[in-house]
């Protein structure tokens, strides 16, 4: 075996196609989802470019898992302390 043989780590790295993007007209998206409250996944960079602030980032695997109903997106209960 070569001294420089690469160690393959199963599950490591990005999945195929995870960093490629497609263009879809908004009307096609709307026609696909009747409920306007449906969560649409977009890249965080894209969301920032179009002006969304204070977004909570989640790992891609987690987002896809939540869409498939396998796991809940992370939500942290933040209580505002009353200063009165």
């Amino acid at each position: 075996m070569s001294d420089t043989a690469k160690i393959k780590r199963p599950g490591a790295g990005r999945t195929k196609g995870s960093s490629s993007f497609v263009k879809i007209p908004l009307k096609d998206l709307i026609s696909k989802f009747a409920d306007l409250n449906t969560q649409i996944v977009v890249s965080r960079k894209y969301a920032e470019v179009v002006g969304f602030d204070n977004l909570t980032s989640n790992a891609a695997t987690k987002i896809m898992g939540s869409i498939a109903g396998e796991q809940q997106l992370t939500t942290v209960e933040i209580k505002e302390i009353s200063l009165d």
Partner: protein
Amino acid sequence: MENLFPEVIGQESAKKKLAFYLNSYQSTSIMPNLMLCAPKGQGKSMLAKQACKKLNVIKDGKIVLDEHGKPLLKKAYEINASQINTVPVLLATLQQVAIDKDVTLFIDEAHNISRKVTDMLLTLLNPNPSNKNSFTHDDYTCEIDFTRQTFIFATSESHSVFAPLMDRLTRIDLEDYTLPQLGMIVQKTLPDVEFQEDVLLDIATVLRGNARQAVKMAWDIRSYLCGKKEFNKFNWNDLIKLLSILPLGLSPIELNLLRFMKGNPNGSSLTNLAAKTGLSRDAVQRDYETYLQRHSLMEITAGKGRTITSKGLDYLKNYDYSLNIA
């Protein structure tokens, strides 16, 4: 020094230390990040929240005023540490409420912070002359400015907090409450009720030195009184019977442990006690033995293991006597 926390009963040294830092904050705009340490129910959250009410926004060395001309307070948020279990979650949380904002973050149950999040906090909370730290994760960098963001942590298990994190924080230990102080907490919770004779001291003896128990007992008294405004020793004895309150506030499990140890004068092992109560060894050790030892009702010796003390025997004798009289 002016009492900055008139709402908080007892805890004089903790209040003094906090007042010292709050006073210096007015001129330096730097509040050290704190770690409040005390057993459960001792008032850590209350003290932290009171401290939040004293931290005002300071910009360029000047106190910022709100639209009414009063000092503008930093917004304050409470988060349970068990919820921020990964670095991205903490980053997202900071992004949501803290970055580029003047805030106080109160993070409770700090012993539940995961190791990876602890590592991030070690970077973010490291004291330095510039009073700023940044942390980069993937392609996102978050910056903490100690003149704008203040962190207050609280824990009931300080030994479980990673030592280097503890080193970066200013530790404030809360003290045990005295019986009169516990009585004052009961009275403060029920300001309209007149407690007669020394009944408040009698009540305090069963509160296990715990401020939260004092508040809960006050609620029980309110339920008992059904709108009446006087509470005397006769009422207290009646409430003791109604709620099966044991002397010193012992739980029925602790009473059983004492009886078991009385029946085994040659000593019992922790496993024996766990088997007798049906609890885990950890639970017996952590939740029950500590309180019995604190009152010298039992002892642990190298040769015999767990045994009841003469004070424990007296406790059982007096308790059984009171049952016979009743």
